[in-house]
């Protein structure tokens, strides 16, 4: 387990301020970034992963500053970002690229450990039987699980996921989130996941960081996430159902489990 500390992070794209002075700390938790589209969730994750260079501020993993893409930070993308033409196994194996030379990786001469690790990761996400299947022939949910497996093969200290279930149907979304949580728990990895479906976030998250217009609105634990906070984050329109206790969000993953009940737990 490890600690991610984000300190006064600011990111500007020209005149547009995507993130402004955001600080938080996540330790050994399954943390969720909440916020509307454009609130800065993706930018935050991309900065932590090193795909985007922050304008100012610091990112620390277990106390040491990090920058650039690195193997101990795994990333799961909304659009999977897998190599579609090859098998799930080879995609998972790309998680080990940082540990081997170019030639080794091209010839697939990775150690047996790495290869078994790839299959282990696929087993964790329930895809061991499909390991030899080409990714392009898999469903969106399965592809995303391969993405999780790739992240696990990196043997990360921190797992990031940028809207991992935004393009999935509710049932698949629940499955994928379940596997993501399981992966993080089984491998003792701190996770930071951005989501826009409040009910899913409330069900899986242990800590909630709300972003609005690039600024941190709240940073609360499970017990402190109230419908009022959600209202403030999204404005009134989207959470009418939530406040009434009759959530009709299409991403409602469990008919019997009402969103308000989840939150009040």
């Amino acid at each position: 387990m490890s600690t991610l500390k984000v300190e006064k992070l600011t990111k500007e794209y020209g005149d547009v301020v995507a993130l402004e002075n955001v600080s938080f700390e996540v330790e050994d938790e399954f943390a969720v970034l909440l916020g509307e589209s454009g609130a800065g969730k993706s930018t935050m994750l991309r900065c932590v992963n090193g795909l985007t260079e922050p304008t100012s501020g610091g990112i620390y993993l277990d106390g040491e500053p990090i920058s650039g893409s690195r193997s101990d930070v795994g990333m799961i993308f909304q659009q999977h970002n897998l190599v579609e033409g090859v098998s799930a196994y080879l995609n998972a194996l790309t998680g080990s690229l940082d540990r081997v030379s170019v030639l080794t990786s091209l010839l697939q001469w990775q150690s047996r450990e790495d290869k078994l690790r790839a299959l282990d990761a696929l087993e964790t996400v329930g895809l061991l039987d499909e390991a030899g299947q080409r990714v392009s022939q898999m469903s969106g949910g399965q592809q995303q699980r391969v993405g999780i497996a790739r992240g696990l093969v990196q043997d990360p200290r921190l797992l990031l996921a940028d809207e991992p279930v935004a393009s999935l149907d509710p049932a698949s979304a629940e499955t994928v989130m379940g596997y993501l949580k399981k992966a993080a728990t089984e491998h003792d990895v701190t996770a930071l996941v951005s989501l826009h479906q409040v009910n899913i976030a409330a069900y899986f998250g242990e800590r909630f960081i709300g972003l609005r217009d690039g600024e941190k609105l709240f940073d609360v634990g499970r017990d402190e996430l109230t419908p009022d906070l959600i209202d403030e984050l999204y404005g009134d329109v989207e959470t009418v159902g939530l406040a009434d206790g009759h959530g009709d969000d299409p991403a409602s993953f469990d008919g019997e489990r009402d969103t308000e009940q989840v939150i009040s737990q």
Partner: protein
Amino acid sequence: MSGRTPGDWSLTEYVGLEEIGDSPVEQKLTELKWQSTKRRLYTLLGLVGVGVVFGASLDLINFSIAELITQWPQFLEALTIGESPYFPPGELVIPFVGLSVPFVDFGAYWEFMMEENLILQIESGGSLLGLGLLPPLFYDGITIVPGAMFATLAVAVAGSVLGMPLALFFGVMSSERVVPYPFNFVFRATMSLIRAIPGLVWFLILIPLAGVTTFTAALAIMVDTTGYLGRLFTDELEEISDGPIEGIRSTGASKAQIVPFGMLSQVFRQFIAWIAFDLEHNVRAAIGLGLIGGGGLGLELYTQRQLFRYTDMMACIILIFLLAGSVELASQRVRSYLREEETESETGVLEAFVTVPQKIVSSTLGRRERP
């Protein structure tokens, strides 16, 4: 008012040189008449010019109707009768019925194919392929002597395989995603230069290097492949998406790993499809290069032309059709298999064979359309 009497007519008025009145309408009519007169004069001048050039051309090529008339019987002879006609007459025996109908004697073609070893010959004695790989313990051993058709195929295969790594190198280095902007143009320009010169001319240029041989033909195809296949690779690389590249980058992979895993992996199938297309094109180019000395079926056709042995020429042409047509069909099948998601129009069997001559010419001259 309507109609005119002969006395009315005047030449100067007709051509528009004589005014017929003062009103604007009358003046306009005169003006229009003069304009059309000028147009007629120019047309006449043009026709006379074309006539003169045409006449001079006929004179220069020794055009003579008399020659056509005297030679006509000889032409017919070359077609079906004579010593070695294009279509040697024979009979087609209908089995069981005992009837036979006059038809082209394919035996004559076959005889020449065997005699000149256009396909391949199997000789007894020696060891397989003459390489001494299999000692003749239990049998006398055979030697396979590949014929002209396989020489052509070998030129294409050797040239393609030699050019492939170069094409991959130039193709990847030309991509702006791999090599930053001004520098990738060095590679781009090299490929453009190669493509600007047709394969036929590359053969001529390379003659001092390896003679008028199949070897030179293969080298010409190698150079040609570098330019064309490389360009196709570059085009393909322009269309890759950023997602997988970011995916691989996020794992902490090095730049040298991002290129093969994030980029090339996206276009691997397309690359194989282009290689199949290029091989097909190169077989046609090898036939064309044979006609100017590059060996194989092309050279055989050229030799028989010089000897005026029409049956033998036709035998070569039949094999050329078979070779180029079947290679195209095979390549097409491979490509449509690889591009399962895309709509690839499949060439029909008949079309593949009918279009052979036109495609041989365009392949040899380096003009190739994207399929």
